């Protein structure tokens, strides 16, 4: 296997019908509520995101993120309460350190920064949630399908 096949040149091998798959870990109290609000407000955003509800961004084990990439997610989004808003007082602060390190680490080994993203979305930020998803999808689309760290490709969309 030539290693170079894993190197990506954006847009080169883009099939026209390819749609990225994004996994989003959302904390129950803010970001998941924000995503609900986007729904209630009927704010449209791309259908590429698969939301996993977790109690707190502090619950997100780094391996959840890596496993998502292994399973062929083209992008991963983790979203929690804004600093100070955490339903569990400080879970998001603990998570923030963890994510800072993880993100740098993944980037350092060559995972494109846009593949793994983080946001704070509050329960009243339906629009922000939609915008975040839109941005992530757009940026991941520009990158093309994930190849690095991928073990198996997720079901075709």
């Amino acid at each position, binding site marked *: 296997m030539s290693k170079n096949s894993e190197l990506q040149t954006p847009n080169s091998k883009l099939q026209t019908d390819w749609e990225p798959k994004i996994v989003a870990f959302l904390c129950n109290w803010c970001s998941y509520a924000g995503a609900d609000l986007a*729904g209630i407000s009927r704010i449209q955003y791309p259908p590429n995101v698969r939301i996993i509800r977790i*109690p707190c961004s502090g619950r997100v084990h780094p391996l959840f993120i890596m496993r998502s990439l292994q399973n*062929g*997610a083209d992008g991963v989004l983790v979203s929690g309460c804004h600093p100070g808003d955490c339903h569990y007082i400080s879970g998001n602060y603990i*998570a923030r350190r*963890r994510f800072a390190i993880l993100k740098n680490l993944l980037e350092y080994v060559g995972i494109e920064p846009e593949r793994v993203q983080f946001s704070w979305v*509050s329960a009243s930020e339906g629009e922000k949630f939609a915008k975040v998803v839109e941005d992530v999808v757009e940026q991941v689309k520009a990158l093309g399908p994930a190849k690095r760290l991928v073990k198996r490709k997720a079901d075709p969309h």
Partner: protein
Amino acid sequence: MGRENDQKVGAVLVVGGGIGGIQASLDLAESGFKVYLVDMSTSIGGVMAQLDKTFPTNDCSMCILSPKLVECGRHLNIEVKTYTQVKDIQGNAGDFRVNLVRKPRYINPQKCTGCGQCAKYCPVGASDTFNENLSERAAIYIGYPQAVPLAYAIDRDKCIGCGLCSNICLVDAVQYSQEEQEEVIDVGAVILAPGFEEFDAHLKGEYGYGRYPNVVTSIEFERILSASGPYRGRVLRPSDGDIPQKIAFIQCVGSRDETCGNNYCSSVCCMYAIKEAVVAKEHVREIQPSIFFMDLRAYGKDFDKYYQRAKEEWVRFVRGRVSSVEEMPQTQNLKIKYEMDDSKLMEEEFNLVVLSVGFEPSPGIQTLAQKLGIELNEYGFCKTYQFSPVETTRPGVFVCGAFQGPKDIPETVMQASGAASCVADLLSSVRGSLTRERIFPPEIDVRGQSPRIGVFVCHCGINIGGVVNVPEVAEYVRTLSNVVYAEHNLYTCSQDTQLRIKELIKEHNLNRIVVASCSPRTHEPLFQETIREAGLNRYLFEMANIRDQCSWVHMHEPEKATQKSKELVRMAVAKACLLQPLKRLELPVTRRGLVIGGGLSGMTAASSLAEQGFEVYLVERERELGGNLKKIHYTLNGMDVQGYLKGIIERVRANPLINVYTNARIKEVAGYVGNFKTTIIADGAERELEHGVVIVATGGREYQPEEYLYGKDAKVITQRELEEKIAHGDNAVLNSNTIVMIQCVGSRENERPYCSRICCTETVKNALKIKEKNPKANIFILYREVRTYGFREDYYRKAREVGIIFIRFDEDKKPKVAKGKKALEVLVREPILGEEILLRPDLLVLSVGIVPQPDNKKLAKMLKVPLNEDGFYLEAQMKLRPVDFATEGIFLCGLAHSPKLMDESISQAYAAASRASTILAKDKMEIEGMIATVNEFRCTGCGMCISVCAYNALELDEEKKVARVNEALCKGCGACSATCRCGAIDVLGVSNEQILSLVDAL
């Protein structure tokens, strides 16, 4: 009904569904009372639901409020009655009969699923009151997206009766024929929590509100800032939708203003203006906010820090009174004329003007109160007394929140809990008489069974079905392994589907249920209850959100939405395979309380608990009860403090349920909520106390000044010493010619950056007292900011009227005090004249601040609770949990929390008692099933989990060298699990394996 006269009713009416009413309801319902929560509008939530952020933490208002809304809406013992008003209340304390009137909402709230299709098709627009009329909604509406109850209403003034909504509603919830309904309920007590109305800014014609589109009120601006507001969180001005670069906030609009009759200070406007200015700037960096103010009243906990930060980084503060606002015809910008501190007149142009409007009681509640025989004060707020801040003049009717006086959210929440405690004192004999408990059949043991999953895919009318091919999703689901049964329903949440689910569980021996419909945040408890009724453990349930997060947000991509729905259900099924029944453990509760500190707060909390029938240990470090109160003699409005103190000490001493330990200290605290064991040493003897809750009421101390020659010259004394002298009729003091008082001694400085809150009031109090006894005395008060918030403003005004002279100084230009030849010499720079003035007082009085108890650190460590930077105890959440610690079962009140006035301490003490009684009211406490669990084979006892746990729910088993979860304290957030390198901690119900299964089923 033929009740006997002395029979009390174990139910409570709470009037007003804002945060105060919600808190009071939750406390009461949790401590064994049936609650009727009545609100005039179509949903509960009040003003707090409208706020964008809250100061001083900039917490998202909705994020912290909405869990309380949901809890309230779902509580078995809270009956929420919206769109309902109180018509009359008859009877006496303990036994009232209440007449309620429910307005027709033209929608059957039991049927309405809140799906919102009707509003989508309603052809009539109406202005959206939730957004302060800055945007439009339909004539059929809900208050706001997170509204509780989530049921629509029809605005009949706007409705044209076209029938479209009725046709579109698939559950037949629309009922045009509804009429006003009267209802009678019996309650033992009433809590009034009607909140406030904003001052009508039209009345200040000089500011142009109503005439100029770019003059908005602060609450309107709050909506403008909100992400769910009229401009979706973009900071725009109404006239043209431009970003307003320069924003002026005008303070005290309708407050501290004799011209409109509102002499009082509204207490919160300074802070909310800073918050709005900061948030606006956070949104758009280019925005330059200016706040025009008289005194910046940042008197609350951590407020001054917030103010300082805003001043340094974000906001321009202008001390000056705005006289007029004029619109510039071309730009619709606004020209502001204002007078500076030094009387200089200025003009400046702004793009947007925000009027910081004050609080007023609503005319409706004033009328009702008068009808009910409840006295109001001169401004129409509910009249209360210093020592009974939550009692109205009618026994059995209590009050909390802004109706009692303008106040912020935490004070409201404290009063709400405080009022609940007073109600519980009154009704403790009938606690639990009207509350219900749900009875379920025994649980089916599914352990060892392979998963048999039933899946219900919801059309939600056309909400999901109109976009997603629901039958196709159900068809797909049937192909997934372990799925035994799948079907699709018009409304999975409807009553008949609930019955069907129960039958199908039996018919197919289903042992896991997946519902693909809307948000688990709103509907999970409903379905969990249903499967529980069918004998399944409530945790054998999983939801896929294919509406809020699929059909509604991909309305134009039906195929992709269908595909996504399939995948979401597939993921839910994968997780469902791994679901395990979880137990909600029940822990016994030692129904006794420990109150640490025998001052005003501690005694108040202890007697409230005792009144409710709970045994209390009251531990005081000194020989005598009373604390700081021993040094205070009279209140601002002249009430006798020592008399009151004597009374409460007698009450405490006489109450057989209160065990008082004086000359005592805490040696060790072990255990946790419901089951504490505390060792104290009282009078040299060690004693072990068992109790279920702890209330920390350790108070604070007066700052010991070193500045201004204190201790070096007998003529320099503190306010407390002055009060002592006045009380003892010290003639030397009373006959002084010239008295100078210096404010903020030891407060608002580098070392103690916080405001001590009480000093301004104390100073005015003593100054007035001297003036009263010796009208010839010349009194100079050197201040930085006079913070006589609320009705205390009246006394400040009075002080000026009687000739007390207030001279302001800046932090960096403090007065200089020296020993002159004959007298003391005080040199201060007068800002209006811009000159230095030399005063030669006979007496120099220092208004010293409050400092935390020096041994707070020690006790905090024993209790494992945090202190803030200033050394005061830090509550779980500044806004909504002001008396709770993050660690369950430990509560907080009085000066230990932060400096505060007597009535505030009393409210907070009652609040602590109320929060404590929610635990003590039951002999067992149920523990959430989704909590952390330790695999001892894997754990290395490294302690990282202990360090990340915000609830002290983890501890080290010293013998086994492994972490141990305290199930009573764990909240299941999972920070520990994600931190654990060894994979030794997991969270039941959201386990690592379960989450990975979701990721694997991607």
